[in-house]
């Protein structure tokens, strides 16, 4: 599980059937201070995370396959929670 910041979305008409109907968000991995670390990655979001919200990203493929209800899905990354605050960045 990684702490990420939601930095945008993508749209794709041609996609694996398991992606249809789900929001795909651009996630920026961040460290405990909120600074960006590394290149963005994409995840399925079923919680409706807002732009620049901090979220918890799971990289467990089997959980994601269950969430999209497709055992043949190639998807792996899933937003499993939205962070209210974390100690180091609490204002």
């Amino acid at each position, binding site marked *: 599980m990684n702490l990420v910041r939601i930095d*945008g979305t*993508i749209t794709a008409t*041609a*996609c694996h059937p398991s*992606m249809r109907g789900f929001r795909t968000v651009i996630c920026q991995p961040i460290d405990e201070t909120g600074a960006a670390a590394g*290149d963005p990655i994409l995840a399925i979001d079923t919680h409706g995370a807002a732009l620049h919200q901090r979220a918890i990203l799971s990289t467990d493929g089997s959980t994601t396959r269950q969430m999209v209800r497709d055992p043949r899905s190639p*998807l792996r990354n899933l937003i499993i929670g939205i962070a209210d605050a974390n100690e180091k960045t609490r204002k």
Partner: protein
Amino acid sequence: MRLGTVIGRVTLTLQEPVYRGGTLLLIQPLSRSQYAGLSQKKLQQTSAQPPAALTKANALVAYDQLGAAPGHIVGFTEGAEATAPFAIDAPVDAYVACIVDRIDYRPPATA
């Protein structure tokens, strides 16, 4: 899943039977700065000039069943999940899951 630019195709004469029906694409992963450059632009235009320049990240070969072509921006998954779409065990490390129409990338101004 990560995003990358399709920069070429790999053609095999002898190949695994499980590869039939798809193509093998060369993909250059996007860096963070390229996300900003491609945001809100009209993608999906195949051309000799790919929308994103080459980066330091290693290009990789991905299996594609969607019909992506050089110049497209695609989302690809890696690792065990890349083999999930196949009915039988397939020697695939990266799988093209979507062809991106539009990127809406808005990082915070202060970051």
